[in-house]
């Protein structure tokens, strides 16, 4: 703020960039100007918001700090630039000027959970929005999920078909109202309506339920054990009473989802706290405007059927995030199951006709509404680990808010990064910002694949994105990689094929604001698997990495994937591969004849597997840490013969650890020694098997065995890192931990603590998922670095 007349009345021009449109920014400034007796104007333009303000120097000085203090909840300022405003005749009032149109550079807002004011209104019998399920305001409500194109105006959303009534219009036009320019605002008179109906369309009367309205009737149906399909903000959900075991089992059976934990929703924190431990960070996350599903440690004894999350130590809870959910749960003292309305791996359904057809036979009742879901957005999932909230799935509430890039990432071309195969997201770079899509899912499923392409087109449209460079994973079989190759050929664009774990590392570097020219940092990448630079399958690697380079200096000693992809589904195949590798099959059977895993293996065609292993036929070599977790889980008989969802074995293994057990482990942890492996630092899993199997044989509790594995692995990883550090001697004592295995809270906390105690600065992901959900962001950054060099 430089002016020659610092203490005279003068004018200032403030350029604001960030998420500042459609969030009530202008009325906030307007009100502040009234308070401080400042005059001038404010307008939205293609770059964000422009404020021109005039007044006494004293008052002007107070303006910016007060603004930053009273920012509307959904606003995010990325950049402020101030300059003098030279004006002939000082303005005599403060005005909001109608928008100027132009190329839009401001971000698209994610959907936000209902604000307290809106909830209060919805529950207030004397308010005109009493029990109105679509109440929202400038500070809350749907955004991205209803947006067809920009600019963000009602006409460009699925609210276009609901013309404002007179009351809503006057709120909409009043700068002093919470609903000033709230595009999705609505009420009973003019807005969308919720409607309960039978799945088969047959008539019924609300009287039957002696209910207040359709939502109340749906609540009553849930209470009687019915499964109800509910249309939410970003898709349909299937709901049932979480305390009703037969309803939960029926839902699981009908949906074909035997084990995967089901998400729960409860009225408030107090209800949740009866079933799970809610820490301060958990509480904040649950109550945040993003309102994700938060995985919380379950309380014992649990007064819910185990089938809501069989074998898991955490329950996924969320709070109501729309008025409809608030109304539905109003009178519930216990949680309901609220799981995405889809079949097996298919995307969450957003269209009512499709929902009725595809989910035929799952729900008998549908609570739907007539506000179209334009963009499918799943619920986000997060967990608190090592002192931070960490996203496991980034979707509703988070996407597609832009991510700012670290220092040095400027003057970038527009980049399209297409992500991975499973847990896919894609990422656009434009105007030196990254826009990461919401969670898409498994691209091998044709419905996800179609959705992916629709969303790609939508994003490119919404953000006026014209790619100049394409980034893909190096795996030739990924659907996204093949698509990227095709786009690059069709448009004649440079194509960056980026090694899987390099992208994982870069995603963490980018999230932690490591500048572009930072020297190489020691990096541990642990995941299921990724295509390696040597054409082999990697997944337990030690690198020196920055955005430009990723040099492998160590690996988990490889094992065989017996039967290729089959080894990802059947965890015991990895146990067998580890047995071949360590103590040998014959020894194993002689020495450990009475284990359950021995019984199971003896029923398999072991001679064939032994041949496969020896010859490498249908048994590609793979250094994956994810598979080592599978191997241990199956050895302990903690995993089913065939997994029903990805990561299941590792989750069950971690969940087996009883509270307080980790702290008790001192001796007896299973260590993986660091060995020379050609020119690499090998981490050798073989020595863990003899003690682990012996512990199993003598009947040591699985809780302790699992704890010994986790503790031993963390200690071994630490030694590996320390040795890697000595050998490579990088410039800084920083360490990147990346890859899906670090979603294991126990492992992350153990390793992070030990590293920090030894003076390492640990960089791990939090705002982006550690799994492949963050991969496209990393791809985009590596591609950007290449473009700049």
């Amino acid at each position: 703020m430089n002016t020659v007349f610092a203490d005279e009345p003068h004018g200032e021009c403030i350029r604001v960039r960030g998420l500042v449109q459609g969030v009530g920014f202008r009325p906030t400034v307007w009100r502040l100007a009234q308070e401080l007796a400042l005059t001038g104007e404010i307008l939205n333009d293609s770059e964000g918001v422009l404020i021109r303000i005039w007044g006494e120097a004293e008052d002007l000085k107070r303006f910016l700090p007060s603004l930053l203090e009273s920012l509307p909840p959904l606003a995010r300022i990325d950049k402020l630039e101030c300059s003098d405003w030279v004006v002939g005749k000082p303005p005599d009032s403060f005005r909001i000027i109608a928008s100027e149109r132009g190329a839009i550079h401001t971000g698209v807002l994610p959907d936000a959970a209902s604000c307290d004011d809106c909830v209060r209104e919805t529950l207030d019998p004397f308010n005109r929005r009493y029990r109105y399920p679509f109440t929202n305001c400038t500070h809350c409500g749907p955004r991205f999920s209803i947006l067809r194109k920009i600019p963000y105006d009602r006409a460009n959303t699925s609210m276009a078909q609901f013309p404002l009534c007179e009351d809503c219009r006057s709120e909409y036009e009043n700068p002093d109202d919470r609903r000033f320019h709230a595009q999705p605002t609505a009420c009973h008179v003019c807005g969308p309506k919720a409607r309960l109906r039978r799945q088969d369309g047959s008539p019924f009367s609300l009287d039957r339920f002696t209910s207040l309205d359709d939502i109340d009737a749906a609540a009553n149906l849930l209470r009687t054990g019915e499964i109800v399909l509910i249309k939410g903000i970003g898709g349909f959900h299937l709901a049932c009473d979480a305390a009703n075991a037969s309803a939960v089992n029926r839902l699981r059976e009908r949906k074909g989802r035997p084990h995967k934990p089901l998400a729960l929703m409860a009225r408030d924190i107090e209800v949740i706290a009866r079933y799970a431990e809610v820490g301060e960070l958990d509480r904040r996350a649950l109550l945040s405007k993003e309102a994700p599903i938060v995985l919380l440690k379950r309380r014992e004894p649990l007064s819910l059927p185990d089938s809501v999350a069989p074998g898991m130590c955490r329950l996924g809870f969320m709070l109501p995030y729309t008025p409809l959910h608030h109304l539905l749960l109003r009178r519930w003292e216990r949680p309901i199951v609220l799981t995405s309305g889809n079949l097996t791996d298919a995307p969450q359904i957003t269209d009512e006709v499709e929902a009725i057809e595809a989910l035929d036979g799952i729900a008998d009742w549908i609570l739907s509404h007539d506000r179209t879901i334009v963009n499918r957005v799943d619920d986000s999932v997060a967990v608190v680990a090592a002192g931070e909230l960490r996203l496991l799935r980034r979707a509703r509430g988070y996407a597609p808010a832009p991510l700012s890039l670290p220092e040095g990432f400027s003057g970038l071309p527009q980049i399209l990064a297409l992500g991975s195969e499973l847990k896919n997201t894609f990422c656009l770079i434009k105007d030196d910002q990254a826009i990461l899509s919401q969670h898409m899912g498994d691209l091998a499923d044709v419905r996800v694949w179609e959705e992916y392409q629709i969303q790609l087109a939508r994003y490119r449209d919404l953000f006026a994105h014209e790619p100049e460079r394409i980034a893909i994973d190096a795996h030739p079989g990924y659907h996204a990689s093949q698509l990227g190759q095709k786009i690059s050929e069709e448009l004649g664009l440079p194509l960056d094929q980026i090694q899987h774990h390099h992208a994982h590392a870069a995603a963490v570097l980018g999230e932690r604001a490591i500048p572009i020219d930072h020297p190489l940092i020691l990096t541990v990448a642990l995941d299921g698997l990724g295509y390696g630079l040597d054409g082999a399958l990697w997944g337990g690697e030690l690198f020196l990495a920055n955005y430009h380079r990723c040099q492998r200096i160590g690996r988990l000693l490889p094992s065989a994937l017996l039967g290729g992809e089959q080894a990802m589904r059947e965890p015991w195949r990895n146990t067998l591969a580890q047995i071949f590798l360590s103590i040998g099959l014959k020894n194993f059977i002689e020495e450990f004849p009475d284990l359950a895993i021995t019984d199971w293996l003896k029923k398999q065609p072991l001679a064939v597997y032994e041949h496969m292993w020896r010859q490498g036929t249908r048994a590609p070599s793979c250094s994956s840490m994810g598979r080592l977790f599978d191997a241990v889980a199956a050895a302990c008989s903690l995993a089913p013969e065939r997994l029903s969802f990805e990561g299941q074995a590792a989750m069950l293994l971690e969940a087996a650890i009883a509270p307080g057990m980790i702290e008790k482990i001192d001796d007896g942890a299973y260590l993986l020694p660091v060995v020379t492996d050609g020119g690499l630092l090998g981490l050798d899993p073989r020595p863990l098997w003899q003690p682990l199997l012996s512990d199993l044989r003598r009947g040591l509790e699985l809780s302790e065995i699992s704890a010994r594995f986790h503790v031993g692995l963390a200690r071994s990883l630490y030694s590996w890192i320390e040795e890697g550090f000595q050998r490579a001697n990088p410039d800084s004592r920083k360490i990147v931990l990346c890859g899906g295995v670090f979603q294991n809270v126990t492992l992350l906390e153990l390793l992070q603590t030990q590293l920090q105690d030894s003076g390492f600065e640990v960089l791990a992901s939090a705002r982006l998922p550690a799994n492949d959900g963050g991969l496209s962001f990393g791809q985009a950054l590596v591609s950007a670095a290449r473009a700049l060099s």
Partner: protein
Amino acid sequence: LSHGSGGKAMRDLIEGLILPALGASSTTPLEDQARIDVPEIVGNGGRIAFTTDSYVVDPLSFPGGDIGTLAINGTVNDLAVGGARPTVLSCSLILEEGLPFAILEKMMCSMARAAQAAGVRIVTGDTKVVPRGSADKLFINTAGIGIIPKDVNLEIARIRPGDQLLLNGHLGDHGAAILKARGDLALDADVQSDCQPLHRIIAALLAAAPGTRCIRDVTRGGLATVLNEFAQGAGVGMRIVEDSIPVRPAVRGICEVLGLDPLYLANEGKLLAVVPAEEAGAALEALRACPEGTNAEIIGEVLPNPPGRVVLSSHFGGERIVDMLVGEQLPRIC
């Protein structure tokens, strides 16, 4: 067997072993070409189908067949799926020095038997012996000529949305038999190659379903490859239903253990026919009435969209994309 120079040793080999085995008489002078009468196609609108294929397989013999039966049936089938009646074949042999006579003789005999069973004649041929290591035991090339009757016109471009996809029996028998025959995996399963000529069943199919759009023999690359070629060639989508695709339990067992997908396994006696919906019932009946099609099934249908994409509806409501094979079946899951 030693490396010949085209002299007496070669003449002895051909006259003494190959010709008798293939049923030709050594008294007929050896001409440099076969001369074929083609009265049927002159003037009545028929066309000649002409194809060639080379056969290399390890091991040479496997349960249900050998390289000789493959060399006949493979080329016969390539003619047959175009709607042709196969008539004559050529046969070129490339022998590795040192190949035992007994093996060569056995292969020649089984070629002759397969030709006879298929009703085709081998009318010309060639033999070369190459130094050890320049070839693996025995390679065979056969070319074949067939006659396509006047009104038969099978083309990928004729595929239309709504058409039904018919398969004449169990998938993957040949691929599984080869895996077992290699013997290096100690597979214990009763599997036999499905190697068989398909021109008769195709004739029956065309008689019952004259509107048949096109037919392809499902060989290397498996059903997945044929479906993708059809979908891309015709610019249509295709959906197959997992539960309706016949796979023998023994083959499924091998696939489970090895992590293979039967959709990608090789076959040597399977065809995929695209038939308009209104003729699908008759077509299925005709297939099932033939010994080559006892286990025929309707396995899916042609969709308008998305062009070029093949989808598998799985048992639990999943809908997986069925790709062309990229290299080995390389794991993708992270």
